[in-house]
């Protein structure tokens, strides 16, 4: 089975078609909308598989299909599709995980009145994400990028009747927009310096040697090359989209959306877009840019893990773990291992989708209770959910050897360790590993062990097969996917870097690092068990052990390091100050000028009117009066008496005849 790059557009087009059908269908056409969405994405999955087999047959070539979108004077604006292993792997993952999430949504959203719109938005989201993946033009990528932003706004704010959801949707949209501004500037600058936005175009694309050489040599201010500056601007977009520090604040709030949306945003689509973008434009990134990316990634990885320790909301903990894992991916890009980043992105997509859907299953069963203090004791009541959730957690933590997260995280740690640059990010990543193990142990212990601490948790029961089957499938891949990229046989990494042969190392090669990370994971799990596992929480209101030990720190972490407050106190205040100043300026300076001009106009209008009324009108009135008087005088002749007229005619005729006869005319 092979697929020409020419037909790559089918992959995003099918979900888009499904979204259109769902948008046009009447509100009651629930099964039509859902059926169209699932069928379209599943078909896209099969096309993606064909694309994957094509790409794997020739991993080193970038199959492209470019076409002219429109012409502008002498310039043409080309767009195109690109098929290489990166695109193919990503498409396959997005369509596969997406399909499972869609199916899960059938059960989760079953009682929702806006079921049809939900599937419409989901399809739009998937279409935008797939369009972003197959784009061979940064312009097309940017268009789809913004569509992803729009769809995420619609989905996060899906329950817009909740003020918190509406606020979260706005926050996500605006925060990512800040990053997108940098992205757009980067695009414009890139177009200005390289003359094209096509990625690969027979030697003329921006990722090909000619353009890269030209960009690298051109120096700009502050000693940065143009390429570094452009790379950092593009990274701004990725920072916004992938929830990197300092624009990570929207991601945890995005939990206000329905849980399948969280799974889709956090696993397969939106946040993956930023990492994908960086992997895609990786040839463009200079060492200067990479250093910044590595540090931002490491900070994010640590930050997310630290904050997750003190959260109580089930989904919020998972959200911060996503922030943290995305930090790892960015770190991998920054230390020059984009393949490790994509490997982690793929494994993370599966186990994080599993975790979110598992959380969704818990929340659905516990009647929308998502505070872990209120849950508890679910392991016995929801065996399948618990088992799959535990697998997802172990993959996330990086429990050795059997779980995918271990291998992908190991690849990142290895890259960070062997990098020639600073090792600070590596140490941050190691601390992150401990914390990840710690907060996940806490999450499992609080949610599933002990006894139910609320009415909802006590009466929870396992969900229907439509919700648990996707969990089982995802759990299988959360384990199996790791074996695609073990150091012994790094098949995935080899294909991504365009090699057909796989050069494996001995497992003992990096065994020191592996042992270290196993020890760190064990420490994290041990600490978590010691604090939360040995003595389980008795009541929903009993205090957190960490909060008793260090109340100030715990509260500070619980408030998410007060980032929101910080932004409110700095950017928010600055913004409102600027707005007030602009308002004042508008009202009194510009408004004053406008008022003055208006008064001037009014004055000259008054003068004109007086001149008109007194001067001009007087003359006209007098003339008109005279004409009227004359008319009245003459109108007396017209008596309305037809006989009178006739008589006058006859008399006049006789007079004329007499004059003619006797006057000698005839």
């Amino acid at each position, binding site marked *: 089975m092979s697929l020409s790059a020419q037909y790559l557009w089918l992959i995003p087009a099918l979900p888009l078609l499904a979204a259109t059908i769902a948008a046009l269908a009447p509100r009651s056409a629930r099964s039509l909308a859902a059926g169209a969405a699932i069928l379209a994405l599943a078909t896209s999955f099969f096309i993606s598989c064909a694309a994957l087999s094509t790409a794997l047959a020739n991993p080193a070539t970038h199959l492209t299909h470019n076409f002219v979108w429109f012409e502008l004077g002498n310039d043409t604006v080309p767009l195109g599709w690109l098929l290489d292993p990166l695109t193919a792997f990503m498409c396959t993952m997005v369509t596969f995980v997406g399909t499972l999430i869609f199916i899960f949504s059938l059960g989760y959203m079953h009682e929702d009145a806006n079921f049809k719109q939900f599937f419409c938005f989901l399809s739009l989201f998937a279409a935008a994400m797939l369009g972003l993946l197959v784009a061979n033009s940064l312009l097309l990528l940017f268009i789809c990028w913004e569509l992803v932003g729009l769809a995420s706004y619609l989905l996060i704010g899906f329950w817009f009747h909740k003020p918190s959801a509406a606020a979260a949707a706005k926050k996500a949209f605006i925060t990512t927009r800040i990053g997108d501004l940098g992205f757009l500037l980067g695009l414009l600058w890139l177009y200005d310096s390289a003359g094209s936005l096509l990625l690969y175009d027979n030697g003329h694309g921006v990722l090909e040697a000619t353009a890269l050489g030209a960009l690298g040599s051109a120096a700009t201010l502050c000693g940065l090359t143009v390429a570094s500056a452009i790379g950092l601007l593009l990274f701004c977009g990725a920072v916004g989209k992938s929830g990197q520090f300092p624009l990570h604040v929207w991601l945890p709030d995005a939990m206000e959306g329905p849980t399948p949306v969280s799974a889709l945003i956090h696993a397969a689509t939106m946040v993956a877009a930023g990492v994908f973008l960086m992997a895609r434009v990786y040839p463009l990134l200079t060492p200067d840019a990479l250093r910044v990316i590595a540090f931002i990634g490491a900070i994010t990885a640590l930050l997310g893990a630290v904050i997750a320790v003190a959260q109580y909301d089930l989904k919020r903990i998972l959200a911060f773990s996503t922030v943290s894992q995305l930090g790892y991916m960015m770190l991998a890009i920054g230390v020059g291992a984009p393949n490790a980043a994509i490997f982690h992105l793929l494994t993370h997509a599966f186990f994080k989708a599993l975790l979110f859907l598992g959380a969704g299953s818990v929340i659905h069963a516990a009647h929308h209770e998502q505070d872990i203090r209120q849950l508890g004791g679910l392991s016995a009541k929801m065996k399948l959910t618990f088992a799959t959730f535990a697998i997802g957690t172990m993959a996330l933590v990086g429990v050795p050897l059997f779980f995918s997260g271990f291998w992908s995280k190991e690849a990142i740690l290895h890259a960070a360790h062997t990098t020639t640059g600073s090792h600070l990010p590596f140490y941050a990543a190691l601390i992150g590993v401990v914390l990840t193990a710690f907060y996940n142990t806490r999450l499992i212990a609080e949610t599933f062990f002990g006894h139910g601490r609320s009415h909802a948790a006590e009466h929870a029961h396992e969900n229907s097969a439509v919700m648990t089957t996707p969990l089982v499938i995802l759990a299988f891949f959360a384990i199996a996917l790791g074996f695609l990229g073990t150091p012994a046989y790094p098949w995935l990494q080899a294909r991504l870097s365009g090699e057909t042969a796989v050069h494996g190392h001995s497992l003992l090669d990096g065994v020191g690092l592996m042992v270290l990370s196993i020890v760190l994971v064990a420490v994290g799990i041990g600490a978590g068990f010691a604090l939360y596992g040995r003595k389980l929480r008795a009541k929903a209101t009993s205090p957190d052990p960490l909060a008793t030990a260090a109340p100030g720190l715990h509260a500070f972490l619980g408030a998410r390091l007060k980032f929101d407050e910080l932004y409110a106190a700095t950017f928010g205040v600055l913004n409102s100050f600027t707005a007030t100043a602009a308002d004042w300026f508008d009202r009194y300076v510009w408004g004053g000028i406008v008022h003055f001009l208006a008064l001037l106009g009014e004055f000259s209008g008054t003068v004109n009117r007086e001149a008109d009324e007194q001067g001009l009108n007087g003359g006209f009135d007098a003339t008109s009066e005279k004409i009227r008087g004359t008319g*009245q005088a*003459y*109108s*007396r*002749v*017209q*008596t*309305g*008496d*037809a*006989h009178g007229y*006739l*008589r006058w005619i*006859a008399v006049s005729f006789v007079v004329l005849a007499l004059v003619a006869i006797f006057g000698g005319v005839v």
Partner: protein
Amino acid sequence: MSPLHLCLLFSSALFCIGLVGALARSNTILVLLGVELMLNAANLNFIAFWRYGPTPSPATGVMFVIFSIAVAAAEAAVGLALIIAVYRHQKSIRLQEANRLKG
């Protein structure tokens, strides 16, 4: 008396009858009849001068008359239509009463 004189005398008589009718009658239709009579007196003159004139050309007089009759017919149609309209407004066709258009 030449035939021309006879004709002219006859047409003068006809014209006078028409004039008197138009001036003396108060029924608008009869006034219109008077006007038609005067018009026909003029037509008779056309024929007479053509037939007994010094240079009889083939059909000049007859042509004039035919035109004149056509115009008279059109005028009569308009006149009658006016009368009907006036009647609808004031339920009377007395000419003295149709004086709304006075100045």
